[in-house]
Every structure is written in C-alpha cells, then in structure tokens.
C-alpha cells in the first residue's frame, strides 16, 4: 500500500517591545534602520512617530518569526533578506531573498504567510510555511526553536 506523504506546516512566532525599537533608533540611528530594514519597509512603516515604531517592531518580529520557520541555527541572517511587504488592503506578505530565500528553497518551504499585530507597547508576528515531505517524528526533533531568544 502506497503511503501518502502529506505536506506539513512550520510555524514561528516572535514578540518585540516597541520601546526597544525606539531605543535602537535613538542609539544607533541609520546604522540600525538600514541594517535591519529594507528601503521599502522603511518607506511603508507609517508616518506618525508612534505608529512607525510599532510598525517597525512588528516587521522585526515577523523577520524573527520567519527565521524560526527557516530553523536558522545562529543569531540570524541578513535581516533584510526577509522583507515584509504591506499591501493596500493592510495585509502583509513576505518576500525572501538572498540567504533566506536559499534556506527556504533548500528546506522545500513555500506558501509563507504572516500576521502582525501591535498593542500596549508590544508587537507580535506569526509566520507559517508549508514544508514538503513527512512531519518529523519525535525522535527527529532537535533543539526547540523557542530557545533562539530565550523567550517562552
């Protein structure tokens, strides 16, 4: 009997304090902004100061959540290789280029989707992607990705 290998989902989540983004901009200015965000992200992150900070925090959370989906072992990739694209509807999608795109291809990941929200000084992002191939068995599971940042 032929066993069907169904695709599986990978999920990543991240939480960022909006104030931490404000602190980074105050301390490191353009070095921080241009190291982490693309020109498109900076241009589309809103006009009011508070709204812009929350938007950038959400984008950072989305990048980190994507890195968890990609199962990046180290601190990260070039953060700009994961780009959050905001559409006129308000919905966001992800564009993976460079190293992030290559990791996604190598892992057989597709159908990336992202959801971002921010309130009460916090920004949260959830990212999901479809992985070709069977789900990992319990014995195959290695490090928990929640240890990337020490956050639960």
């Amino acid at each position, binding site marked *: 009997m032929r066993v069907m290998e169904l695709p599986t989902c990978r999920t990543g989540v*991240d939480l960022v304090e909006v104030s931490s983004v404000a602190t980074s901009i105050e301390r490191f200015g353009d070095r*921080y902004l241009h*190291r982490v965000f693309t020109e498109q992200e900076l241009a589309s992150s809103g006009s009011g100061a508070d709204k812009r900070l929350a938007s950038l925090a959400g984008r950072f959370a989305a990048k*980190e959540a994507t890195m968890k989906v990609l199962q990046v*072992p*180290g*601190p990260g990739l070039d953060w700009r290789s994961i780009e959050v694209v905001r559409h006129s509807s308000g919905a966001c999608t992800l564009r993976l280029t460079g*190293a992030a795109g290559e990791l996604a291809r190598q892992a057989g990941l597709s159908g990336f989707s992202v959801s971002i929200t921010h309130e009460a000084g916090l920004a949260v992002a959830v990212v999901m992607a479809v992985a070709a191939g069977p789900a990992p068995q319990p014995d195959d599971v290695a490090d928990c990705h929640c240890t990337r*940042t*020490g956050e639960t």
Partner: protein
Amino acid sequence: MEAAIREVLAAHGRLPVDAHTLGEEDDLAEAGLTSHALVNVMLALEEEFDLEFPESVLREKSTFQSIGSIADVIRDLTASQAAS
C-alpha cells in the same frame, strides 16, 4: 576583550541579570538576551571593535552564545582584517 564585551552587554543587552556576573561560558539566551537586544549588542560590538559581523558568522549558532564565543569570533575577525 571579555571585559569590553561585558560592558556592551550591560549597556545594550537589556538582560535581567547583571552582565558583570555572567560567566564566560554562560548561555546568553538563557540569561535573557532577546532577539532584538542581540541586534543592539551586535551594533555596539561593531562600534567598539571597528568591525562588521558578516552574515556567515551571524548564521552560526555559537557566535553570540556566550561572552567567550563572542570574544573568539571577534579575535578571528580582527585577525582576518589584519591579514587582508
């Protein structure tokens, strides 16, 4: 060098513990270093040591794992810069 790294962690790591009390091999993620604070630590280290962490180094799990591993990476990068 380790002392300078501790100062950077104390100033930018937003750790719930005093960075000066961390052992050189203590896991920084376990000590509370978040993903966003790591960006600030990285930028501050680049300023402090006048270098830039290449992406190949950022992808390695061990790079920012501890004060000791950060020091090792910086020594390697500094030596590479001097040799080139």
